[in-house]
């Protein structure tokens, strides 16, 4: 410790005068406080996957609105003289590997062979209907079914879960027993039976998807409300004199709403999948109406020769599913950074 002892002796006297230190300066909290939604949005923006998902969803929604009107063909207009044409797009037709030049897999230019001068951007189906118009029309219907099913899930689920948690006791007990039985039945089976009874169509599909769909939502709402009822910060804010309105507005809604949004984000792709699945087993939308699932199902019949009939709607449905899953994951992380399952 004799180190630098001499140097230390050289230190001037004024160095040993008391320093002006303001202790309280230390106590300040750094950083500004941000609101729940602002904070969630900030975290979401940092997640490239979620933002990509959001953009894809917006583009697909836009296309489902304007896509069917972008050319002169209607989704149900048949013309056998131009049936099963491959895709052909102006300009892009010159780039050979894209396969958008109207040449089918056997190497024949079908447009030339059939004497068709028009361009069908996604080709045509077995009845000569424009696939582009049909795919976006189908997207519109698939999204509508999913959104409607998600909305019904939301209404029933929030009401059921909220009532169950709010009243508690016997009401809660009975409502939860009912759910237990419902959960014991594979929802797939229930959906199929339900559609068999009603005629297949948009509304019976929406109803069938909602028969069991709300259970998940109601469980989440009930769980959140019950958790919040007993959570210490709610107790703390009550102790500090917060009114019920403030507890609901400041604690309950932000926490529950976040969970509800996340659940909805996963309900939509699952509804789209189930709708497509129903089309596959012959219980979907009836022609001439089309959904993405029914278009893909139709295409499968001639997959080996006309793969384009399956390819385009498959890409769209996959994009929708991926986009919603990415956005759902991103929202989950944004609303609750601790919960990463």
């Amino acid at each position: 410790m004799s180190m630098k002892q001499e140097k230390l002796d050289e230190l001037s006297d004024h160095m040993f005068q008391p320093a002006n230190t303001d202790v309280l300066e230390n106590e300040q909290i750094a950083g500004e406080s941000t609101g729940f939604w602002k904070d969630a949005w900030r975290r979401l923006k940092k997640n490239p996957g979620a933002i990509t998902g959001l953009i894809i969803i917006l583009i697909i929604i836009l296309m489902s609105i304007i896509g069917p009107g972008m050319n002169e063909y209607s989704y149900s207009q048949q013309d056998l003289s131009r049936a099963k044409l491959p895709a052909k797009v102006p300009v892009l037709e010159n780039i050979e590997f894209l396969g958008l030049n109207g040449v089918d897999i056997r190497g024949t230019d079908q447009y030339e062979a059939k004497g068709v001068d028009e361009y069908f951007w996604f080709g045509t189906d077995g009845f000569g209907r424009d696939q582009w118009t049909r795919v976006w029309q189908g997207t519109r219907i698939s999204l509508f079914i999913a959104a409607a099913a998600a909305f019904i899930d939301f209404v029933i689920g929030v009401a059921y879960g909220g009532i169950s948690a709010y009243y508690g006791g016997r009401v809660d007990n009975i409502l939860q027993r009912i759910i237990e039985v419902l959960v014991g039945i594979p929802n797939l089976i229930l959906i199929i039976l339900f559609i068999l009874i009603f005629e297949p169509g948009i509304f019976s599909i929406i109803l069938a998807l909602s028969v069991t769909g709300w259970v998940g939502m109601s469980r989440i709402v009930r769980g959140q409300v019950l958790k919040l009822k007993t959570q210490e910060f709610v107790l703390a804010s009550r102790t500090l004199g917060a009114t019920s309105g403030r507890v609901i507005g400041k604690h309950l809604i932000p926490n529950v709403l976040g969970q509800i949004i996340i659940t909805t984000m996963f309900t939509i792709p699952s509804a789209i999948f189930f709708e497509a699945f129903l089309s596959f087993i012959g219980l979907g939308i009836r022609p001439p109406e089309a959904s993405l699932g029914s278009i893909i199902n139709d295409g499968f019949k001639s997959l080996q020769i006309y793969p384009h009939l399956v390819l385009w709607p498959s890409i769209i449905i996959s994009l929708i599913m991926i986009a919603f899953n990415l956005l759902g994951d991103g929202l989950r992380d944004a609303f609750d950074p601790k919960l990463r399952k």
Partner: protein
Amino acid sequence: MGRYIGGRVVSMIITFLIIASLTFFLMKLLPGTPFNNQEKLTDTQIVQLNEKYGLNDPVAVQYFNYMKNLFVGDLGVSFQQDGREVSTIIGERIGASAYLGFQSIVLGTIIGLFLGIIAALRHNSFLDYGTMVIAVLGISIPNFVIAGLMQYWLGVKWGLLPVAYWDGFAYTIMPTIAIASIVVATIARFMRTEMLEVLGQDYITTAKAKGLSSTAVVIRHTIRNASIPIITIMGPLVVALMTGTLVIEQIFVIPGLGEKFVNSIMTNDFPIIMGTTLFYSLLFIVVILLVDVMYGIIDPRIRLAGGKD
């Protein structure tokens, strides 16, 4: 534990009875007729057929007979296949479906666990991100899209694998991949999360402080504990698998139960729809029960909690 299982079995039977009744009454509500080629049948023939299958009895009697037969495993006969036993038809068809389902879940679980473990151990590396991309794709892309893409490219275009039918191992590869994709994705994702959670636990530090090698810490303490909760997602996975076989068997023309079920829906063969529905429901209920019991056996915390009851 014994009492716990007993209670579960009772509630399982009740659920099954509810499903059976529900199925029966829903079937009675169905529009249309159960007979094939109705327009070719004369009125007397229809009366005879109704008589033969007891369809003229009051619904209550029909329900009673149906439930009674159900108890002895008699699911009735198919009206459209010359009165063949539904249980026989299910028996013929279950083999291919079971093989496909089993192969998919075993393969999918192994690959999923492997990916999840690697991703967690190499957290935030290229491997981790790669696995996450595979998981999102596997969960998102519908199995029929995967099936279609494979069928076209691997089957038609490159001719690597048979396009369809059921005639040996090569025929099982594409359907298995299509069904297993969701299993791989779900398990990889779940395992990764569990692994990361366990790796952050204090007892992992304790294990390292004992001087165990990193391999021993990973295998004995991390993987072991992280894989226990995997059992809980097996129930939902089996359902996803069932959904998968319905569609995939249709696409690849596999003579399984799923394909039969879909065809009976298209031809209104009610006894087969009912029988298959009940069969699937029973399968589902039994799997859920097994999952619960297995979880109790494997996790000592639950095992003892059950034992003290």
